[in-house]
């Protein structure tokens, strides 16, 4: 059985088709879900993809967190469902309080779109279970408000930049909640999955699909 992953689409989201395509290319089952239809019940996992939900107006993720669908995501996350926020999705998860910290403008106040190297700092999450600690990967970053700040120092860093490009605390490129079932990642693993020179994102999304499967089995039993 394959768990169906709901890929949430807010107005202004633009990476939903890429995420669906990448997950399907890895053998997963994924569907875009319009935020207004707020239905993630029955999904085996949720992805909040990248883009500019609601134009990033007010503040990134600040409007999207009030979408009725986010209340459902919150409940599901509390129940252990794998929830992955990529880029703008990471920002929404922080705004919604599902992840600690906040994302602010890059150190150099410029948008950054390029491949970066990251290393696994915690392999007990839905994204990194297939890796050894310290494993290194190349995946592309694509953000302006990409610097994660965590003044209280309580966040759980999942992967970190080997050469911090944007001024993130503890060089964090991905962060998890306490149980490790909610992860926000700033670079885009889905952009390095198809066979085009770089495939560093494969292992991460395979890990996520695997976590969705296990969670579905846990629920079924």
């Amino acid at each position: 059985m394959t768990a169906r992953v709901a890929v949430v689409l807010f107005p202004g989201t633009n990476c939903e088709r890429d995420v669906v395509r990448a997950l399907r290319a890895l053998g997963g089952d994924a569907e875009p879900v319009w935020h207004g239809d707020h239905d993630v019940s029955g999904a085996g996992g949720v992805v909040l993809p990248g883009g500019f939900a609601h134009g990033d107006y007010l503040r990134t993720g600040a409007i999207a967190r009030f979408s009725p669908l986010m209340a459902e995501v919150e409940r599901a996350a509390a129940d252990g469902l794998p929830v992955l926020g990529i880029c703008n999705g990471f920002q929404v998860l922080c705004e919604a309080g599902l992840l600690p910290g906040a994302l602010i403008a890059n150190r150099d106040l410029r948008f950054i779109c390029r491949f970066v190297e990251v290393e696994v700092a915690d392999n007990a999450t839905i994204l990194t279970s297939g890796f050894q600690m310290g494993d290194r990967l190349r995946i592309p970053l694509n953000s302006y408000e990409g610097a994660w700040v965590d003044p209280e120092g309580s966040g759980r860093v999942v992967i970190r930049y080997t050469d911090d490009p944007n001024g993130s605390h503890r060089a964090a490129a991905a962060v998890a909640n306490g149980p490790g079932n909610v992860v926000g990642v700033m670079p885009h693993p889905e952009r390095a999955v198809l066979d085009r020179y770089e495939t560093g994102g494969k292992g991460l999304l395979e890990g996520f699909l695997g976590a969705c499967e296990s969670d579905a089995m846990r629920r079924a039993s």
Partner: protein
Amino acid sequence: MRVRRHAASFVTAGPDTTGPDTAGPDTAGPETEGTPDLGLLGLSVEEMSDISARLGRPPSPAELAMFSVMWSEHCSYKSSRAHLGRLPSTAPWVVVGPGENAGVVDLGDGWLAALRIESHNHPSFVEPHQGAATGVGGILRDVFTMGARPVALWDSIRFGPLDDPLNRYLFGGVVAGIAAYGNAVGVPTVGGELAFEECYSGNPLVNVMCLGVMRKDQLVLGSAGPPGSIAVLLGASTGRDGIGGASVLASAGFDEDSGAKRPSVQVGDPFEEKKLIEACLELYRRGLVVGVQDLGAAGLSCAAAEPAARAGVGLDLDLDLVHVRESEMTAPELLMSESQERMMAFVPPERVPEVLEVASRWEIDASVVGSVRPGGMVRVTHGGEVVAEVPAESLTSGPRYRRPAGEPWWLEDRWSSTYRYLRPPDPAEALLALLDYPALADRSWVFEQYDHLLFLDTVVGPGFGAALLSLGETGKGMAVSVDGNGRLCSLDPRRGAARLVFEAALNVAIVGARPLAVVDNLNFGNPEHSEVMWQFVETIEGIAAACEALGIPVVGGNVSFYNETDGQDIDPTPVIGLLGIAEPLLTSPPRLDQAKEGMELWLLGSLPGRGLAGSCLEKVVFGHVGGRPTAPDPSAGRGAVALARRLADAGFAPVLQDVADGGLAMAAAEICIRSSVGAAIECPDFRQLFSEDPHRFLAATAPGYGDTLAAAAGEMGVPASLVGRFGGDTIAFHLGSAVSSVPLEAATRTWREAIPRRLVG
């Protein structure tokens, strides 16, 4: 400046474009009480008489507003149209040629590509961030108006030298504007070009190209459809921003008062555009529209007149139904506003509820604003009164000028002004100077600010010559190269323009694509200067000849005149966007970062190549621009394209790189830098290292493949010469017994730092 609500307060007639400035209110048609003084809005006295003659009466203020924008140079192509017909525009694969919102070509298997290029030069000078941003928004609408999903953008941008703080501000603002809009709207910017020349100091060039794809049955034209169709205005509300942008900004030159034109610049909202794209694509998918027209230059005037004229029908337009963002807008303001992110859909009456439902689902506003009727009249009402009643066709068939064209008096002098030197320059020093020249340097400071990876189809992205995109999972690919060279064209516009077409064709061939179609953006000075008109006509001849030689059509383009500041015209700057199709798509095509220690470096194309006229070497090292550039050779051009495609397909040359700006030395150095490997290059004469003569490219191959490569070249009639070998940690030039070399590390640092170091402080 007078009070803001008077449209006329935004209007200053361009320098000597309109005859005496005093010809104003008394020739401007009947004045009703309380109507603001509209002046001539950029129209000439002769054009005013023409309008009155066509109408049989003086135009009303609303009619005058419509004519002024529709007959502006920007919208009517009045100075260029007489010459544009010279460009070849037909081929069996052309589905829609010039004249629609975008050109459309057949990619086979039921797929179509829509492409268009457009300038936003003038707005970008007045307000770089918004000017460039709305240029992106406008070109996207041109493409999705045709039914296509925009899949990629290219930016061709030119500025004055970076040692001037104004140029740094414009450069930074334009790049940030493109990034802010393109990234947020969700269309990747996968390539483009960047140049710096003194002549763009007062007049930067911002050209944006967009490519879209669609299934064959989704093609939509800009037609109003049959009588009875309903006009639905979709997207952003209409405000006073951008009033008269086409006439006031884009169709006049600049002087010291240009800052006062800032209210004529539009303001963009990429979020609104993103929703509009998705809503429109859903309308097309569900077959709910008979035609669509975007609102760009000339706003509602254009969206009413052009679709009606194309369909041979009339239109009733009620301005009271337009959703607005400001109260008490006058009819002329509503008709001239260039508020962004708006589309006009023409809908069969019974489908209107579904169209409104789609709009509401995507959270965009929609208003039923008019209906199509028989006859050819566009009738506009406002406040219950008819404010304009004009034949649609009169708005779209503006005047055509055959302006006087004459060879510039200085041209012969410049041709005979060849540079003489006592001693040839040291090649290594010359190379370092070129690597430090911002127009040749690493552009990652620019393109790393653009999302160039969205949609997962970017196989070869920015920084590599032509971009190569996968067409989804079809196994086909699309390659695009965007090329311009104002310096070369200033010395010989015909030769220069033709060489650009050949260069772009060679670039797409290098990633394995067959050239398919061209769009051109023609950036020129004031067409009322006879030498500018001559440059324009020569450029058209050059593009036409090269396209004919390659068997490819020009499917669309844009003309930008009045690129002058204080009477000084820019260099003639045609920009060529060339689309090629790759069948099959190579999953790992040649790329210049794949050279390895021990590989051989081959030059394909004629070796003599000693012409330095217009070259970067002369400009950067000698500070000289003169002589007559080498003429292109159609048969050598075709041969190079055919050979490059064959080598790309064959796969034994992991690097192919065209020889263009900076010549062989620069092309080889770029391969070395990107591949992190040195090279030893042999050349009998320094001129051959730096000549930019056309139809030549480099290949890197593993040693055993030299004979195969030479044989392939021989079959195509292309000379092949072994010119060097990769290895070591220097870039070394061997001229006879003399050796001159640069450490690879120093070359790399110079190239990477050339742009960033100039932006500090």
